[in-house]
């Protein structure tokens, strides 16, 4: 697994697609937060963490869309699946590499709290917990995008399916549906949304139910990806 993990991670660090996506993510994240910073007049990082799911919506599928789709298109998947390596290990290695790279991209935004510490009061435990929540959120999005990449040879199709799925998951936990959906349905729907569970981390709380939610959803999509790769039809 380590061999395949290193190979995938090396690809993202040495290929323009990888580091351009990471840099653009960091630039946009910083810009969208900083542009209203002085208008707001407070140094809270909450607006930054509120933007993150919407940035992940675009950047994670963009990063992940090639992970299996490109192997299928170029048929290197035939090499990989005829080596003595278990399919689950292949999936875990690719997932771990993607998650590691996403974490590095997220870490590129650490300059924000570091700078804000000099201009205002920051409660560091809340920020650390919020970053942890963002990391768990990115894990879910990576696993979903990886699943859709395993379904097709076409990276664009994988990208679009990932974005659509993640978008609907995000809005299920938002106020957007209040006008359309009865309250009792909305309350139940909320608990399925990553945004709802992400919210507790932004308050500085590590809710174990939310951790379990993120881990379960991540594992589910890794499992579905493995089932798909194991198919020999």
């Amino acid at each position, binding site marked *: 697994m380590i061999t395949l993990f290193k*190979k995938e991670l090396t690809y993202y660090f*040495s290929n323009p697609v990888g580091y351009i996506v990471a840099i653009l993510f960091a630039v946009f994240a910083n810009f969208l937060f900083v542009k209203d910073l002085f208008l707001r007049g407070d140094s809270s990082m909450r607006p930054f963490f509120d933007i993150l799911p919407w940035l992940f919506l675009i950047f994670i599928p963009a990063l992940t869309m090639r992970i299996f789709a490109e192997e299928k298109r170029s*048929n290197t998947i035939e*090499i990989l699946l*005829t*080596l*003595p390596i278990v399919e689950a290990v292949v999936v875990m290695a690719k997932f771990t590499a993607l998650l590691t790279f996403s974490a590095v991209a997220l870490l590129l935004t650490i300059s924000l709290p570091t700078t804000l510490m000099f201009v205002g009061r920051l409660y560091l435990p809340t920020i650390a917990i919020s970053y942890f929540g963002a990391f768990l959120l990115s894990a879910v999005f990576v696993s979903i995008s990886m699943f859709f990449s395993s379904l097709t040879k076409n990276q664009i199709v994988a990208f679009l399916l990932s974005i659509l799925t993640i978008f609907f998951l995000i809005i299920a936990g938002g106020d957007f549906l209040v006008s359309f959906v009865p309250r009792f349905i909305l309350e139940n729907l909320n608990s399925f949304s990553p945004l709802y569970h992400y919210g507790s981390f932004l308050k500085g709380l590590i809710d174990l139910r939310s951790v379990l939610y993120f881990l379960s959803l991540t594992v589910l999509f890794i499992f579905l990806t493995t089932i798909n790769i194991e198919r*020999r*039809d």
Partner: protein
Amino acid sequence: MIVLEKISKYFGEKRALDNLSFKIKEGEIIGFVGPNAAGKTTTMRVIVGYLKPTTGEVTIDGKDPINERIDVLKQIGYLPENNPLYQEMKVFEYLNFIASIKNNRDNLESLKEQTGIKEVYESKIEELSRGYKQRVGLAAALIGHPKILILDEPTSGLDPIEQEKIRNLIKTLGKKKTIILSTHILSEVEEVATRIMIINKGEIVYDGAKPKGKGGVEKLFKKLVK
């Protein structure tokens, strides 16, 4: 060693393989020939467990290549059709990667000479000529001393000189390994194989000794494949 029993493979409604049955003994070099879309590649993929047959059974030394795939794949060196490679990697990176997965680097150094890739060892795969790429694919298949080699169109697209070099290498390897050589180049089979199988429209139409005399394989092929 390799046993296929009543293997059929359907892709939806389309029948790719129809009731294939044959046994391959240790040390044989099988020339597996057929026209385009006959089912050669599908058969190779079923043998290595990349595709699951719709009906029938495959065993390699008594093991199922799908349910016991790790044990089976440790014994097999596979060169797929069109030789897919990770183009962004350098040759040595790719071979090291394969050796790590196979957990066997014993013959990595000797393969450089054996497959003639010493001078391109530090080059990026995407920069190589087709001939060198084919040699890299073959080197990867040979890592770890596999007992069985499955080569799907190993000389496809190569010039005559390169084709001869690969053929000579296969002949040398055939002294110690069981080889299935899938190809539509009949002269290649005539030179290298000890036994011929001809497949047409998913069925084995001939399975036996090489016909005697130069051009014997071609005559037999033309007679059986219409």
